C-alpha cells in the first residue's frame, strides 16, 4: 500500500483549513459566493494541488502538467484560494474576487486566471472536456493525467452521462473523476431533488472503476489518487462522500448554505469554528 507520512496528512489538513478560511472571508467580503460546496471539496483540492498533481506554478502552461478541471464551477472560491496559496498568483488577489477589472470572475475563467485550466459555471461539462484532453494527449505527447472534480449536481445533467459514455468507449484511464458527493444542492437534498442512487452501480454500468472514500479523509484521498493511476483499463471515479459546508456547524448539510453569505455574527462564529477545528 502507499505510504503517506503523518506529517503530510497534517500539512494537507492545515491547507484545507486555510482554503476554508479564505473562502469564508472571500464570500463574506464579496457578499456573494458558494461556501457549502467549496467547503466540501477543500481536502480534495489540498491533496491534489499540494501533493498529487504534477504542476509547476511558475510555468502554468508547462505542456506535461497534469490537468485539473473544476466541473462544479461554483466552488470557484475554493479553487482560487488553492491556486493562490500554491503560488499561481498573489494571495492578495483573492480580496478583489468579482471586482470590475479583476482576473477572478464569479466562476472560473481560463483566459483571465493563471492556473485555471478551463472555464466553468453551468454544471456537467468537465467530464466531456476531460475526455477530450485525454484523447489529445494520446495524439500529442507529452502525456499527462486529467482530473475532474464533479458534484452531484453535475451528475444530474445529461451531458455528464454523455461524457461517461465517451470515456467508456475510449477507455480513458488517463482521466480520474473526483465526485464531491455531498448530497445537497441549491434547492435541497440531492436525494429528494433528483436522486442519483444507485450511483456506484451507475458508474460501474458506464464502464468506470469506482473507488469509494470519505472525501474529508486525506489519507483515503491520497491512497485513492495513487490507486487510480495504477488502473490502466478503465477510467476511474473516486466517489467521495462529503459534507456540504464541512467545518462550520451551522452550514453543514444545509441547502441554505449552497449560495448564502454569512452575516457578522455568523461570520465570527464560522471563523472561530474553522480556526479551532481539528482533524
Amino acid at each position, binding site marked *: 500500500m502507499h505510504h503517506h507520512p503523518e506529517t503530510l496528512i497534517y500539512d494537507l489538513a492545515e491547507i484545507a483549513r486555510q482554503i476554508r478560511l479564505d473562502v469564508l472571508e472571500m464570500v463574506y467580503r464579496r457578499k456573494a459566493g458558494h461556501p457549502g460546496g467549496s467547503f466540501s471539496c477543500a481536502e480534495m483540492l489540498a491533496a491534489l494541488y499540494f501533493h498529487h498533481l504534477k504542476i509547476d506554478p511558475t510555468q502554468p502552461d508547462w505542456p506535461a502538467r497534469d*490537468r485539473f478541471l473544476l466541473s462544479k464551477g461554483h466552488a470557484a472560491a475554493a479553487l482560487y484560494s488553492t491556486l493562490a496559496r500554491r503560488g499561481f498568483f498573489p494571495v492578495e488577489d483573492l480580496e478583489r474576487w468579482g471586482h470590475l477589472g479583476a482576473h477572478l470572475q464569479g466562476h472560473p*475563467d*481560463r*483566459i483571465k486566471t493563471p492556473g485555471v*485550466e*478551463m*472555464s*466553468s*459555471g*453551468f454544471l456537467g*461539462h468537465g467530464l*466531456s*472536456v*476531460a*475526455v*477530450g*484532453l*485525454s*484523447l*489529445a*494527449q494520446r*495524439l*500529442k505527447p507529452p502525456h499527462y493525467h486529467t482530473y475532474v472534480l464533479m458534484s452531484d449536481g453535475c451528475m444530474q445533467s*445529461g*451531458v455528464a452521462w*454523455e*461524457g461517461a*459514455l*465517451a470515456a467508456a468507449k*475510449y477507455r480513458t484511464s488517463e482521466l480520474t473523476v473526483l465526485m464531491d458527493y455531498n448530497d445537497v444542492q441549491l434547492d435541497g437534498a440531492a436525494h429528494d431533488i433528483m436522486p442519483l442512487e444507485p450511483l456506484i452501480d451507475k458508474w460501474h454500468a458506464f464502464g468506470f472503476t469506482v473507488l469509494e472514500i470519505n472525501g474529508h479523509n486525506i489519507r483515503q484521498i491520497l491512497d485513492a489518487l495513487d490507486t487510480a493511476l495504477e488502473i490502466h483499463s478503465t477510467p476511474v471515479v473516486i466517489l467521495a462522500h462529503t459534507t456540504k459546508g464541512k467545518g462550520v456547524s451551522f452550514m453543514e448539510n444545509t441547502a441554505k448554505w449552497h449560495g448564502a453569505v454569512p452575516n457578522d455574527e455568523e461570520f465570527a462564529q464560522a471563523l472561530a469554528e474553522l480556526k479551532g477545528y481539528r482533524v
Partner: protein
Amino acid sequence: MSEIPQRQAYGIALADYGERNPDVVVLDADVSSSTLTKFFADRYPDRFFNMGVTEASMVDVGAGLALGGAIPFVNTFAALLTLRACEQIRTCVAYARTNVKLIGGYAGLSDYKDGPTHFATNDVALMRAMPNLLVVAPSDNVEAARMVPLIAEHDGPVYMRISRAAVPDVFDETHTVELGKGVTVLPGSDVTIIGSGSMVGRCVQAASALAKENISARVLAIHTIKPLDVELIHQAAQETGALVTAEDHSVLGGLGSAVAEAVGSCYPVPIEFIGICDTFAETGLDTESLMDASGLGVADIVAAAYRALQRKR
C-alpha cells in the same frame, strides 16, 4: 450548378487537408456518412472520433481536444449542433475561446426531404450572438474547400455552415479567400445585392435579370458573416444607395440583420431582406424548388431589388 454537393466538396477538402496538418482531428455525431467527414475517417481513423448522438458532449470533447493542442473539426447537422449544443458552444467554445471548428452541415433548407426538424434557419442568428466566434457561410464549393485550411489555421473558434445540396458555382479555381473579407462578384451602381451561402449564385442570376432591364446591380458575396466586412458594405451603401440581402436562413438575426446593423449607424439606405420569414418552412421534393417556394427564389430577389430602388432617394 456544381457537379457535387457542397458537403462533398467540404468532405474532400477536409480529408485532403488532414494529410497536410496532423493536428486536425474530426468529430462527428453519427452522421459522418451524411456530412461526408467519412472521407477523413477512412483515411485517418486514429484522428476521427464518432461520438454517436451526443452532440452536447461532442462539443465539450472538442473543447478538451483543443485545450490539448489539437485542432478539432466538430461536425453534425447545423440545427443539432447549434441548438442542442448551444450552451456547450457558448460556455466551452466561445467564452473559453477554445480553438474548436464547429461545422454545421445541412444548412438552411438543404435537407429538403427531412423537413423542418432538420432545417437550420436560425443557426447564424445564434452563432452570431456568441462573442469570440467567427461565422462563415461559403458561397460555393470552391469557397467551401478554400475555407478548410483557412479556418483550421485561424487561431480561435469558428462556426461554418455547409449545404447538403449542390449549390450554384460562383467562383473558379483562381478564387482567393480571406477571412473577414467580402467579395465583389459583380460590379454595379444602382443597387447592391448581398448574399451568403447557397444564395450567392441566385443573387448573380437576379443581377443578370435586372441587367436586362437596364438596372445595374452589384453583387457581394459575404462568406464571413462575422466579423462582417463593414467597409465593403458601407461602400456599397454609399455608392449604390439601396441594398438587398439574401440568405438561406431566417430574416431574423442572420446576414440581413448584420448588414442592417452595419449600415444603420453610418449610411442608412433602404434594405430589403430575402430569407425565411419567421416560419418553419415545410418538407419539399428537392432543395431548389423548396427554396423557390419559401421566398428565396431569383424572382423574389429581383422583386426586392425593385422595392429597394423605389424607396431610394
